[in-house]
């Protein structure tokens, strides 16, 4: 019986250790959380890729260097999460006092469905949300390799589902002026996103 207690203690200790190590101190239970943690600490740099926006202008992604970016990853034929996410993005865009920060902040919606989301499609989509193509731009990344780089850099997973759908991360990605991932925000929490923007971008300008 005494030995039983010893073995129970050993099992609990080793089991606890196993949990402690694999969940990084009882904090991280999904791979996703782990990736976001490591992305934040890694401080990725601006991906060296070329993008095209909904007005047809082409430029390298580091055009946005020096600005905070609130970015979502979408595909326009999406019927579930993307429209909700973009509607909330619009709510943030409208609530947020853009004039106060002007050049320091840009809203981006990046499509990962390069095949279907042409410039025309993106422009029509931008119209739905009153995105002006300046402070809020819809982007496509023409080169598949470039797109992978962007998704990789910010830890976005896209899995094709069926013929025309994708499963993908739905979050607001707040990216700093140096290209680093500042925060991953819940897209359902509009106020939280606005506060985060005020906090970070406000800090940068004052």
């Amino acid at each position, binding site marked *: *019986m005494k030995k039983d207690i010893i*073995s129970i203690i050993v*099992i*609990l200790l080793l*089991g606890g250790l196993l949990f402690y190590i694999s969940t990084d101190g009882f904090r991280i239970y*999904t*791979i996703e959380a782990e990736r976001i943690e490591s992305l934040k600490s890694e401080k990725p740099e601006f991906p060296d890729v070329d993008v095209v926006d909904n007005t047809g202008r082409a430029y390298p992604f580091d055009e946005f260097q020096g600005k905070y970016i609130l970015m979502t990853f979408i595909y326009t034929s999406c019927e579930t999460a993307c429209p909700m996410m973009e509607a909330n993005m619009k709510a943030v865009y409208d609530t947020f006092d853009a004039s106060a920060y002007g050049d320091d902040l840009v809203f981006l919606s990046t499509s990962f469905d390069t095949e279907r989301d042409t410039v025309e499609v993106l422009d029509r989509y931008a119209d739905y949300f009153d995105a002006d193509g300046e402070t809020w731009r819809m982007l496509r990344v023409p080169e598949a390799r470039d797109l992978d780089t962007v998704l990789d850099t910010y830890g976005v997973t896209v899995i094709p589902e069926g013929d025309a759908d994708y499963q993908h*991360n739905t979050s607001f990605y707040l990216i700093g002026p140096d290209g680093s991932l500042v925060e991953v925000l819940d897209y359902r929490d509009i106020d939280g996103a606005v506060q985060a923007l005020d906090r970070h971008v406000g800090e940068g300008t004052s």
Partner: protein
Amino acid sequence: MKQFWYGLVLFLFLALPPVRHLLESIMAFHMHMQMPLLFVSGLLMAPFFMKRFKNFFDQWNGSGLPGVILFLVIVLYWMVPKAMDESLEIMAVEAFKFISLPFLAGVPLRDSWVRIGKATESVLLLALAILFSIMAYLYILFESTLCNNYLLVDQKTVGWGFAFFSLCLILYLVLTLFTDQSQYYDEAST
């Protein structure tokens, strides 16, 4: 001894790369077929180890409780979404799955099963039923993916699988509560 060979064949079969690949390609197969079958292969192989290391088990698992707790720790570990994702991406975790489920969950549970009383047995099954209910609730209602490698719809399927497991366990518990099982077994066979 026959059981040991069945168990070993099952274990090796599950370890074949094409079988592994197939079972891991769908979340429900991974969680509700591969993992339980690995556990079952351990159950089948258990008598061999129980005979071979009789002294060890008698000494360290006298009451059967340590075996039950070890089993629960391993089961709980594989409920963590990250563990399942990692088993697909990190070879060491995959190897740990093939070692832990048969040899650290299956073998000790069978060794404990003959040592623990009916009460402990029921408590264990109830604990599992509760655990699986929580997993079912989580997997069915969670709106974003918990496992990066699988689709949301797969996740819901796994949730319903958990609900089914949980229901079976509860039905079994109710059955043993309200019926006298002893009449079906003579003392010698248990």
